[in-house]
């Protein structure tokens, strides 16, 4: 680990000033940055510890019905907040399906959103990676690619975004509140994660000194609370990143779908939405046929980036599954295995 200065600013302006210096990295929960420093991928010259900044750890309901979550709210605290979990059950389910209890207790909202890809070639300092080193190339291509992207990738980068949390958030049109040297700005979370193009890798780009202060869910997000699920496919029952995952949220009125939100995780450099798929669902009677139509639209244009063509079929199937589960209704209680296919369809407590 390189030598670095540890700075603990007392106020947001101090934090921004410290973070704007070349080579600075913000530290909150530490569950991502410290790992990257230990494996030699991150080498910050200054670690700016924002974990004690005041006022960034609140979950608020705004006057217009929007929900505002402070950057330092811990994943576990958010998922277990009764008001939030009731309003956005799929987000809570996604949070609880991620990492482990210990990590969720430490990890913050902003840190989760800022986390880097888990692409093994990004994490291996000896491999070429455009995300780590612009223009270096992408050693993932032609390598071990079982978990890599099948949507929105390019020859510059085939990495996926690993967060579960971000998947339903993107579907709900969440907005990131950013503070920086040039003042605050808002950005839709979907745009926050850039897809790669022919020469540029995907990922998050913030200007020096910028940091997330909060995430805002618009008032209509809570309108999906009755029919909202997150489903995550993985080869270990817990503590594993998604091979593919899906968030599905429906507003059902008079047995018809009045509004639909669907996003896929584990397939692209950002949680993947399809306006065509959501449009197809609107007005339809919930059922397998329309869900499969929507699922086909979700993976339209998908292509293997390596030994991962099977993920396209899985992405389609998990979309159908998530929509089916959402249509059946949000479970009264969080399943004992959140987001797992081994949580019964009925959604009642599952414990083998």
């Amino acid at each position, binding site marked *: *680990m*390189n*030598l670095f200065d540890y700075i603990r600013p007392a106020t947001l302006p101090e934090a921004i000033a410290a973070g704007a210096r070349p080579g600075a990295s913000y530290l909150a929960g530490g569950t991502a940055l410290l790992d990257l420093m*230990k*494996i*030699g991928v991150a080498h910050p010259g200054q670690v700016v510890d924002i974990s004690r900044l005041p006022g960034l750890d609140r979950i608020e309901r705004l006057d217009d019905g929007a929900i505002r979550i402070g950057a330092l709210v811990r994943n576990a605290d958010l998922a277990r907040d009764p008001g939030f979990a009731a309003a956005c059950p799929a987000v809570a389910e996604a949070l609880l399906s991620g990492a482990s209890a210990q990590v969720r207790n430490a990890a913050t909202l902003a840190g989760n959103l800022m986390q880097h890809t*888990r692409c*093994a*070639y990004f994490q*291996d300092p*000896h*491999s070429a990676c455009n995300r780590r080193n612009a223009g270096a190339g992408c*050693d993932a291509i*032609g*390598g*071990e690619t*079982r978990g890599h992207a099948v949507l929105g990738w390019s020859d510059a980068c085939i990495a996926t975004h690993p967060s579960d949390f971000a998947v339903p958030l993107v579907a709900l049109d969440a907005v990131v509140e950013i503070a920086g040297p040039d003042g605050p700005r808002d950005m839709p979370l979907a745009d926050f994660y850039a897809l790669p193009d022919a020469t540029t890798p995907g990922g998050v780009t913030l200007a020096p000194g910028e940091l997330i202060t909060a995430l805002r869910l618009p008032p209509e997000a809570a309108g999906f609370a009755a029919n909202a699920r997150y489903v995550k*496919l*993985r*080869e*270990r*029952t*817990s*503590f*594993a*990143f998604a*091979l593919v995952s899906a968030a599905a949220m429906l507003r059902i009125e008079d047995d018809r779908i009045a509004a639909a939100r669907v996003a896929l995780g584990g397939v692209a450099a950002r949680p993947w939405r399809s306006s065509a798929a959501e449009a197809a669902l609107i007005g339809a009677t919930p059922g397998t046929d329309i869900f499969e139509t929507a699922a086909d639209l979700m993976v339209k244009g998908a292509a293997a980036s390596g030994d991962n063509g*099977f993920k396209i*079929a*899985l992405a389609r*199937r*998990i979309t*159908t*599954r998530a929509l089916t589960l959402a249509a059946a209704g949000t479970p009264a209680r969080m399943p004992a*295995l959140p987001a*797992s*296919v*081994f949580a*019964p*369809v*009925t959604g009642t407590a599952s*414990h*083998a």
Partner: protein
Amino acid sequence: MPDPMNPAASGHHVRLGSNSGQPMTRRDGAAKVTGTATYAADNRPEGLVHAVFAGASIARGRVTFLDVAAARAHPGVIEIMTPDNRPPLHVNPDEKFHAFAWRTEALQDDTVRYAGQPIAVVIADTLEAATEGARLLAPLYASDPARIGFDQGTRYDPPAVGIGAEADFAKGDLAAGLSAAAQVTETRITTPLQYHNAMEPHAIVAEWTEDRLTLDTPNQAIVMSRNAFAQYFDIPAENVTLRSPYLGGGFGSKAIIVGPQLLAILAARMVQRPVKLVLRRDQMFGPVQHRGATQQVVRLGMEATGRLTALDHHATASTSSFDDFIEPAANASHNLYASPSIRTRHTGVRIDTGTPGSMRAPGEASGSAALECAMDEAAEALGLDPLEFRLRNYAETDPASGKRFSAKALRDCYAQAAARFGWADRPLAPGQMRDEDGLLVGWGMGTCLFPAPMFPARARAVLRADGTAVVETAGADMGQGAWTALAQIAADGVGLPIDKVVFHSGSSDQPDGGVAGGSAHTASAGGALHAAGGDAIRQLAEIAAADPDSPLFGTGNTGVTARDGRLYRSDDDSRSDSYSDIMVRAGLTELTGTGSGARDPANEERRAMFSHGAVFAEVKIDPELFQIRVTRMVGAFAAGRIINPHLATSQLTGGMIWGLSFALHEEGVHDLRTGRAMNADLAGYHVPVNADAPSVEAILVDETDPYVNALGIKGVGEIGITGTVGAIANAVWHATGKRVSSFPIHIDALMG
């Protein structure tokens, strides 16, 4: 005939069950959960500095440049050790000077033989400075293409497999057996590179005091390793003290000396200060052994009645380019099913990895996986229930040698596990069962088998005049509970309650406790402890018998029984004398007995000795997404006398979970272009979490084995893995109708 004056041999002087047989909890448990148990890396001698090795990022070639100046300039860096300035070793690390010596990498030259190989060591005041120093070395290489994977490796016929086992075996006429068969099945199974990944990484604290060396390092063969370290550094064995009171798991990877340990000792010599070297998790994927990958083909010939006519098992296994450890997978077919013809063969493949080694059930785990899948496929071909098929091929004598078994309660294992599991309700055809949520349900089974070897081991028992005893052997507690089970045996050996016995273990200044491997530690070290106690009691009985003031005066041939600190006349319980009184009258403060673990060579000659078991598994599988969960496992095991049912059950269920891990999770993924491990951490290299193993049950089946050793003990540490891997794969078939050809079983293998 038992010798009445040698109670250790007769076993009559103890009431087995007074300590042995009790389900004691781990005596070291409180120390471990409160953090006071001192593991190797917890040692911080005065003046300690830290060493970190730089690992090669190529898999084959030479190091042409190291930026030593940059590393040396980093604040806190004390010294850089490279092949140019490394102090000498008395034994060339490429020399195999005994059966447990691997060729290893200790900066003997600039060659790179696999990715992750140590190519330099940085010594610094802090771990962080040493780590950064190693990074700053920024090596340059002359690299050759990596050879990783079966297709890129070089095949050869190995002279031996495992540690000195035969590479090829034949019994009966295989060709005749195959041509006489009504049906022949062929099963192909591939298993991946697997890395031990004990929770505690390899670690060492080395301190020189002139020509004396003190080592704190987790080790499964303490005295053997002490002797080998002494050879490497050309000092008398007694000049080396190796302390290993606790291991955070070993699984076979901590039995032999590996390069990083030598490097830490060399570094300590170089800087004249104590040095600590702890491997990072990613450094566990290279220099500290692994299980080689295998490609296996099992051909079975059967009569229409279901009796085997031929068993042909060929295993191809990977090893390094520079040393030989061939996973002896095909040998798993020697001793289980009663085929009149058996042939097993091995082929080696040299690839650019570190050298493999013993990884929990080496050969037995991977070989059983293929054999049990093959048996299931054969049962299907015959239209037979898989358990019935196995019963029709039940071996009454050892199929390989023809010897009688020392004990074999496998029928009881089958019956008890099947009953507990509910196997009788299993539909024969696959794809018949669904649960209430629509998940596919499948049931599969496998037979478990593990040999019962013994290693030479010695122990000392000292009776003290205050009625207590000190008992010693250099045993290894890897978490399996040796501190507890060995102490139970030791207490019985001296006829005392366990709280009157001080048990010392885990250090090379104690008598050689042998190797904690081969599931043989309790039998070997336990046998030695029991014999040592018996030797002390024998001496005590002689003193009492010769002492006119003792109630036992003149007991002579009638013998005595020792219990609870007293000797009793075997034929008259009313006449007894306490250890204390006997010793005080004789003017003794201490009385020392010694003993060794042994097996009657005549029994070894005449009997085949194995632990047996059966595992039944239930899987549930999503019918569209194919995520797999092992919802239930029931195993039943017969392993002779069980010293501690609590610990034995823990070992057996732990083995079954390891089998689950083999079946569904573990896989070392290497980039085929560079040879580098691409999942070298526990986020990428999966082992099961609790949610993967919701219900795991092990039944202890009564078995008395009068031949295996004096105490009748066989092993329980590894057998749980065997049988389980196949049982899960067979359950996956039963749920889906799909036969898998490679482990771990991935979702996409079931999608097609």
